[in-house]
């Protein structure tokens, strides 16, 4: 398996370049072919990710949705290849990087394997991720850790982590040959803080390890299974947690990851086979995403693809969310329990009828009542702009919204922008210049009719117009009262801007 993996990984840069297929909506757009992605990092408003391939290919995005290739990291390294010490400790392959900002520097850690498990993890040091910056260059920082081909470890797949409790910097690494290991880094140099100390074994039977922290717990996420075989790859992401950064990392059934434990975080699903290489993208204000690659995206010819998805939390464990799917929904305020609706007079589903007594007086059941759609009840709706309000959800036509992705208008990490219309009509939810809401008769494509729908860490959604006229700050759909939606600055500590999308 290792030999095959080596050969196949070397082909990924080429394969990714060939991945410029027609992109279906609801997966990242543009040049998204990638294997072993690094953590996605935001720098000067742009999103950067690096992956396996010759010279460590760079992927960049202006919005987190549409991606493009931008050369390789090694193009900005003196000599255009790993430094001599890295080559001596490992080899000339360049795989699976990860990076972090520390002070005014970026540290990129990358795998430089020879014949595994002889391998090294090299360090590159730079001040900016922007290749167009005059300050853009990467300096060789030498090997940080390595494996000699005999010891019980394979020094590839670095994952770098800053402990938010004290600012210390840590590196996990390893791949199948033995253990996933942990070493502490010097936040100023990016190199090992205490090279004389023996690395700490924290897991086994995996690769692509990385840590995250939340609410007093350290989580170690590791990819299990086999890679690099397209739709025949069994890659899946598993995890354990510990109260100390050094472990022990225990899964949900009490098994130490050093003994092969690991609670499933994400396996194959939908049209995607073999997720691996978790990375946290924390956008703040209860919006967390994670990046990964799929070994095979069946909608794009089965090649390996980058994806960004919502990261949720439940019962003390991270949960892989799904990017928003188009469909028709009730949009319900978490705060009030009332539903967004067109401000028109509703009609009961099935028409007016008698109460029938409490509990129903009829001795026999009736025939099914069909769902109400706009064509049935919209004859008297005003033809022009109509207010938007909230009311108890009663399955009525003015309460059902169709959410549809809009092509070629950009997006945000993981998703394109959406338009939100009353189902069966062109009446479109629109942000107004006085920071309120209205339903206009038709979609114009203007940014106040394009909506960003982020799933928050609790599973609810934040809904934001791409821009609001007369407002410089981003605003979110907000429930100020039981029947009144508005736009307001997102406040994560409140339920005002949290919404549920329920299938009617």
């Amino acid at each position: 398996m290792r030999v095959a993996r080596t050969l196949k990984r070397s082909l990924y840069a080429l394969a990714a370049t060939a991945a410029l297929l027609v992109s279906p909506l609801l997966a990242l757009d543009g040049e998204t072919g990638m294997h072993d992605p690094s953590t996605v990092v935001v720098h000067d408003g742009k999103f950067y990710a690096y992956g396996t391939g010759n010279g460590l290919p760079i992927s960049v995005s202006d919005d987190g949705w549409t991606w493009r290739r931008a050369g390789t990291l090694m193009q900005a390294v003196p000599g255009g290849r790993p430094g001599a010490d890295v080559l001596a400790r490992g080899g000339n392959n360049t795989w699976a990087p990860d990076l972090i900002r520390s002070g005014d520097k970026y540290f990129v850690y990358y795998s430089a394997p020879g014949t595994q498990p002889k391998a090294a993890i090299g360090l590159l040091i730079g001040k900016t991720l922007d290749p167009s910056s005059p300050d853009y260059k990467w300096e060789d920082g030498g090997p940080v850790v390595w494996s000699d081909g005999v010891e019980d470890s394979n020094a590839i797949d670095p994952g770098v982590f800053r402990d938010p409790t004290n600012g210390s910097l840590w590196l996990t690494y390893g791949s199948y040959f033995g253990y996933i290991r942990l070493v502490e880094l010097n936040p100023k140099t990016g190199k090992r803080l205490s090279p004389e100390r023996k690395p700490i074994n924290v897991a086994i039977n995996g690769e692509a390890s990385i840590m995250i922290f939340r609410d007093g717990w350290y989580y170690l996420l590791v990819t299990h299974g086999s890679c690099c075989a397209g739709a025949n790859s069994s890659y899946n992401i598993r995890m354990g947690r510990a109260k100390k950064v050094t472990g022990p990392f225990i899964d949900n059934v009490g098994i130490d990851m050093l003994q092969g434990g690991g609670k499933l975080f994400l396996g194959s699903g939908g049209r995607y086979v073999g997720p691996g290489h978790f990375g946290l993208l924390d956008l703040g204000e209860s919006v967390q995403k994670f990046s990964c690659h799929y070994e095979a995206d069946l909608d794009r010819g089965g090649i390996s693809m980058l994806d960004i998805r919502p990261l949720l939390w439940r019962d003390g464990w991270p949960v892989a969310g799904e990017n928003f799917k188009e469909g028709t929904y009730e949009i319900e305020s978490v705060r009030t329990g009332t539903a967004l609706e067109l401000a028109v007079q509703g009609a009961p589903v099935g028409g007016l009828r008698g109460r029938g007594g409490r509990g129903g007086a009829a001795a026999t059941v009736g025939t099914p009542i069909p769902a109400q759609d706009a064509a049935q009840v919209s004859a008297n709706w005003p033809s022009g702009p109509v207010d938007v309000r909230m009311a108890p959800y009663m399955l009525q036509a003015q309460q059902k919204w169709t959410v549809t992705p809009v092509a070629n208008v950009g997006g945000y990490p993981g998703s394109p922008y959406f338009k939100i219309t009353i189902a069966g009509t062109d009446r479109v939810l629109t942000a107004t210049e006085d920071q309120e809401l209205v339903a206009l008769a038709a979609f114009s494509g203007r940014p106040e009719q394009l909506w960003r729908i982020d799933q928050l860490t609790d599973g609810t959604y934040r809904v934001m117009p791409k821009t609001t006229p007369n407002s410089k700050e981003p605003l979110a759909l907000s429930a100020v009262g039981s029947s009144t939606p508005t736009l307001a600055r997102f406040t994560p500590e409140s339920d005002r801007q949290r919404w549920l999308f329920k299938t009617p």
Partner: protein
Amino acid sequence: MSDRTFLPSLMIVGVLAGVVVLGVAHAQGLAPSLARPTSPAKATNADGFLQRWLLLEPIAVSGQLTDTAVQTTVKTQHFPNQLTTIPRDGDALSIGDTKVAWHAVDTIGYNVNLYHFAYALNKPTSNVLFWVVTVVNAPREISGVRLAIGSNAASVWWVNGKEVIGIYNDRQTVIDEGVSKRLRLKQGPNVIRAAIVNAGGHTDFCARFLDDQDRPLKGITVSVTSPSTTEGSAK
């Protein structure tokens, strides 16, 4: 329009008739939850609720509560200048064959109990329309505020002559259930007006302003004396 001199006599007769004829506790006075104002102006309560109002005795209407029916009811002229008048305590009106009067009240609670208000006056509580008015005095211009109301049942609200809230159908009073878009209170008096339609059962309302952070607006007072103002645009 004004029949103020007639009203006290009518009320006295009415009270006596109520006691003598009905012999029940339909005392024609203020409900226990209401009191006569004794000061020129009243601050909001701790939660920002407006507790001083002029209430018009109920007007008989169909009691239908759909959006269209309520809008038709409140836009029907029941008395002259119903969307602009700033009545005084005791002003009386003739609506058809019925005489109704305005009552200045302070409510003890956060809400105004219209059911008890009407019941205490031996007036109907079902299929009725209540007009209510108050004057909010702002110490300075305040932008970005919202009128926030709850009502049982449907109601339509105006601030300085502009319609800002309509909530419909049979409903209970829930705090902040109906909230206006952002508006501006001008310095000095601002007229708040509402029409509440009840079909049957209990009826009441509550109202307050929220500031630009959606917190109860404080620092304003409420009066029911006629301000020397004309109603203007809310925004």
